[in-house]
């Protein structure tokens, strides 16, 4: 067991609360840096995909996990980021008064993809200010359907269902969007996004977001501007998801509207809920879950009797069962389970099961909703 003696207020502000953080996350950092040199290309690609999903997960976590606004339309922001990146680095931006379209370098187009998605986030965030819960989910869902339609119909830009080839990014004589360089690029973006979120969450805006999640009315009475904070959350969340989309465009190499359907939005929501709503760890755990479960099931199929394995629909069935099981027994997701395991070893041998027993919440009858 570790006893933490606090002698200054800064200890509560630091990201690394004690030396254990430095050791464990340092070790993790070494593992992820060494990983691409140990595994073959396929696994490096899978890990890159994992980081991209985790970035999008962090984006949605800020909105749904920390501000408590459920979005069923994050595929739209993901897609906006992806298409912006593909168009700006591919055929370039062409405006009526220009002779030649401007083709952007990656280092400009990448932030622009995030900014454009962020602006789209504000555009949906402002009309959605008065909506909460299931109604907000429906509004964002509708928004995602509209954007999906835009991707397929705005053929002069997106090429519609014919698809759009995403150009590889050359940096020196290195292909930045493939193999190890792309792995490190995605990893760097993921780490940057997580640090950015951690900073946000330990400062007034992050606390305001969490306050809105738990009680809008008292947040307002404490001087929090609901409209501004919610719009900020939408913009940041959409922007980060847009960045993930831009990386995803290069990962796919070929964009079509089918990559950004409602199913993608649902997958992102499943990612944050299964990972553990309300924690940044959850975004990463969720990405691991969403990517590895279908693969795990495919491997598991080899060990099942042929009659069962060959039945159509076994994989979605198992996926669904595991999902339901997780939601029932672990409402705080994989991160919740992780905390329990960590606690078990920290308290060993004194762990009590009741430590994590959920208490009934007090009734809130005075809610002005």
């Amino acid at each position, binding site marked *: 067991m570790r006893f933490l003696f606090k002698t200054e207020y800064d200890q509560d*502000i630091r990201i690394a609360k004690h030396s254990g953080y430095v050791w464990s996350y340092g070790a993790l950092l070494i593992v992820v840096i060494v990983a691409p040199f140990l595994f073959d290309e396929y696994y490096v690609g899978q890990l890159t995909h994992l980081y991209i999903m985790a970035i999008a997960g962090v984006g949605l976590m800020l909105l749904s996990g920390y501000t408590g606004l459920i979005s069923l339309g994050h595929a739209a922001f993901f897609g906006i980021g992806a298409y912006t990146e593909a168009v700006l680095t591919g055929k370039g931006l062409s405006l009526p008064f220009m002779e030649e379209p401007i083709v952007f370098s990656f280092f400009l187009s990448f932030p622009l993809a995030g900014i454009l998605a962020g602006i789209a986030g504000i555009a949906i965030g402002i009309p959605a200010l008065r909506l909460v819960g299931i109604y907000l989910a429906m509004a964002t869902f509708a928004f995602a359907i509209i954007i999906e339609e835009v991707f397929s119909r705005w053929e002069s830009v997106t090429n519609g269902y014919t698809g759009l080839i995403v150009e590889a990014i050359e940096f020196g004589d290195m292909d930045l969007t493939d193999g190890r360089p792309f792995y490190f690029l995605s990893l760097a973006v993921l780490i940057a996004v997580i640090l950015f979120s951690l900073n946000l969450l330990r400062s*007034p805006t*992050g*606390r305001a977001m969490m306050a809105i999640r*738990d009680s809008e*009315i008292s*947040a307002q009475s*404490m001087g*929090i501007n609901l409209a501004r904070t919610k719009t*900020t959350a939408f913009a940041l969340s959409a922007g980060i998801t847009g960045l993930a989309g831009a990386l995803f465009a290069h990962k796919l190499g070929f964009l079509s509207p089918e990559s950004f359907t409602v199913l993608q939005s649902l997958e992102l929501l499943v990612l944050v809920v299964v990972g553990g709503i309300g924690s940044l760890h959850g975004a990463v755990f969720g990405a691991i879950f969403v990517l590895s479960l279908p693969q795990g099931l495919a491997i598991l199929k080899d060990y099942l009797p042929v009659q069962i394995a060959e039945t159509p629909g076994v994989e979605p069935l198992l996926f669904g069962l595991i999902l339901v099981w997780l939601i029932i027994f672990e409402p705080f997701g994989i991160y919740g389970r992780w905390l329990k395991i960590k606690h078990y070893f920290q308290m060993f041998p004194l762990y009590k099961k009741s430590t994590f027993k959920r208490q009934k919440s007090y009734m809130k009858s005075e809610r002005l909703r």
Partner: protein
Amino acid sequence: MTFFKAENLAINFGGVKAVDGVNFEINKGECFTIIGPNGAGKTTIFNLISRIYDSTDGSMEFDGQDITNVPPHEIAGLGIARTFQNIELFEHASVLQNLLVGRHCHSKTSLFAETLFLPSVRKAELAHREKVEEIIDFLDLQHYRDSLIMNLPYGVRKVVELGRALCTEPKLILLDEPSSGLNVEETRDMAFWIEDIKRDLGITVLMVEHDMGLVSEVSDRVLVLNYGRMLAHGSPQEVQNDPEVIKAYLGG
């Protein structure tokens, strides 16, 4: 000296006149209590002052400023803080975080500086923390600093909510039934704290309360409401002996 003034304050919900032409003035440094039977419109007056509801008629003035149309999130910055009848804390956050949210109206850091956690943000955070620690000492909350609200008993939550309101450094504090759900001992503590808030911190107190023991102990003046109208007005003893008040409470 008039510190807060409500003039002809009224609000209708459809055909229901929840508050109907209420006038009162609060002097600086006093404890003013609103009492009345259930549904008399006491909490509605609180919601009007904290601008959660828009009044249908009348005006409010606080510290020489008209606050009838101020947006709700600016009320805290003007110096009016409140607690809620059914505790509205941030359940999934620690006591410390809850109290720090109380400092929100005093934070001026920009989003950009926050995402990079520039030294200016750290400095501001440390300053907020020092202020929060003063309140923690004042209310004896040292033991609970890092506990999550959802794991705390009701009585402690009540104190944390009072603390959160105090963290905004208010000039006027609105307490909505500070003793509801508290046992005898906790109610005693609450009475002492209200006295201290008034005397040591120099904060004017406006409260809604049912416990007449607490009311007569701490309040300087009492306003009695019934069906949104003013029934009586005066010192706790005067009000308790008023025949109209007795009639409203006991019927007849």
